[in-house]
């Protein structure tokens, strides 16, 4: 194919849209490309574009009333309050996590009666490896906040099922996929994966193609799974 042919649109009768108004950035065909390391390499032209905008970052919330109230009550267990894109984030110590949650739910000032979400993050390599993330919402005040608590791999998180019933399955899911234990949960077993599965898939050291070969052999009678 010659260079002049390139911009030509194929003139097929069906299946073709009229050329769109939107821009279609045509990369130069000579750009070096390799399949495996696609995003990193292709990302090179991106930084100058992003630089044009105001760079988003975490902002500290010092004046926040909730933070002050919590600090009064739990003093050194509350670490910080930040916000990202106007979503407040409170980092607390796992030791007082349960008490903070009770305070947040029961205190009429806050009234976070709805546990939106409960999940975890895995910062592999950090001292405190996992980070528990709770999203709380108050129907009365229409406020959404995020509570974070860092824990190390051995630490046990207090279960909040006695505060919000909805935490039941979410904690089971975190237990299943991250292997984080919850104390005070009365039915803590795997939920999405089979009970006798080994490994916790959402941990960062669990490769995406990793499977529990022993389990597969035992239950599915597949000798060797395709690579």
């Amino acid at each position: 194919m010659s260079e002049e042919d390139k911009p030509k649109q194929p003139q097929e009768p069906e299946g073709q849209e009229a050329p769109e108004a939107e821009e279609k950035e045509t990369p130069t065909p000579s750009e070096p490309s390799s399949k495996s390391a696609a995003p990193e390499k292709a990302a090179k032209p991106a930084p100058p574009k992003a630089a044009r905008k105001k760079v988003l970052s975490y902002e500290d919330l010092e004046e926040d009333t909730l933070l002050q109230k919590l600090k009064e009550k739990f003093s050194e267990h509350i670490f910080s309050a930040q916000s990202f894109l106007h979503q407040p984030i409170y980092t607390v110590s796992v030791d007082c996590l349960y008490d903070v949650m009770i305070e947040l739910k029961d205190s009429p000032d806050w009234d976070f009666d709805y546990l939106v979400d409960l999940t975890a993050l895995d910062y592999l390599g950090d001292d405190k490896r996992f980070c528990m993330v709770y999203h709380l919402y108050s129907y009365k005040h229409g406020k959404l906040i995020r509570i974070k608590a860092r824990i190390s791999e051995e630490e046990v998180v207090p279960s909040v099922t006695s505060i919000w019933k909805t935490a039941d399955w979410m904690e089971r899911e975190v237990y299943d996929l991250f292997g984080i234990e919850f104390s005070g949960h009365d039915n803590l077993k795997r939920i999405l994966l089979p009970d006798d599965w080994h490994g916790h898939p959402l941990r960062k050291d669990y490769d995406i193609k990793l499977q529990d070969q022993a389990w597969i052999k035992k239950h599915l009678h597949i000798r060797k799974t395709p690579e």
Partner: protein
Amino acid sequence: MKAMEESTVLDAKVLELNMGPQHPSTHGVLRVKLKLDGERVVDAECIIGYLHRGVEKISENRSYIECVPYYDRTDYIAAVSNVYGFLLGVEAMMQIEVPKRAQYIRIMMTEFSRIASHLLWLATHAIDIGAMTVFLYCFREREEILKLFEALFGARLTTHAFRVGGLWKDLPPGFVEAARKFIDEFPERVDEYEQLLTKNRIWMARTQGIGVISGKEAIEWGLTGPVLRGSGVRHDVRKDRPYGGYEEFDFDVPVGENGDTYDRYLVRLEEMHQSRRIIQQVLDRLPDGPVRGKAPKIVKPPVGEYYSGIDGPRGELGYYIVSDGSAHPFRVRIRPPTFISLQVLRRLVKGHLMADVIAIIGTLDIVLGEVDR
């Protein structure tokens, strides 16, 4: 002796019955272990995970653009709103301005997807309770919506509806007329379903007083969407935390009174009417302009985290996106509304009859693709 051992099934006081994962009315691969005393449910345990594909894990290994099609496959009944929720989060983190026209079309299509999803819910709910004609009437209308999806997105079910910064392409010719035709005819169709169900004594007997949950308890269980609203809590993410331009449209949030299956049915029917109202407004006020904002080719949000919750057809669908500054998400947590509302099943079915289990599973409107992810 052997015969006696074999007949223990009949001797047992409590009959343990496995409903699912291959059962006509568990809406996929839900398995419910029922403990029955006669036909009365003593206890129930949900066993899920048969459809677990690890979408959250897959997301961590794909770029932001690449992982969007996978969200079609979580809640495959309302694929459009799934993608919408995620993209709203990404666009917020990237500070991408979405053109007005794209915003409007997005809202229209999510509302269409809500109607389609509710239609499918009504269809399956009705056939679970035995009214199989409603099933096909609903599918007929849903088909029209799927045709609209096909014309705009190029696929019917797993639509890969929106792109970062807007839409793939603008509305195809004839789309607005087809959409108008649909919403003009739609109320008539809903009346037909109502004629077959709403006042029907059998339908009322099967749904009224079944699976009652109070508003307070519903909040405690984290229920959202029509299930919460059926219990009388007037909460809708579209109203309380408007996103994507919903504040410009006028619609009501219907609520029920008794929190039973019948009220949830009425709430969903009314929601279809409200969605229709929103679509009507979109079509009337659809601005001109581009449909795709200035989005970089490589989506690389800054280090940070964002929770974007939208009101999907089944409740609050949340995407908690954590970025470490690279082209892959550090973590995407999907808050699946039906995963969370399914756990209330155990509480709702206790003391009811076995036939009610079906009705209650139906009224929770679960999608196993989303429950298991």
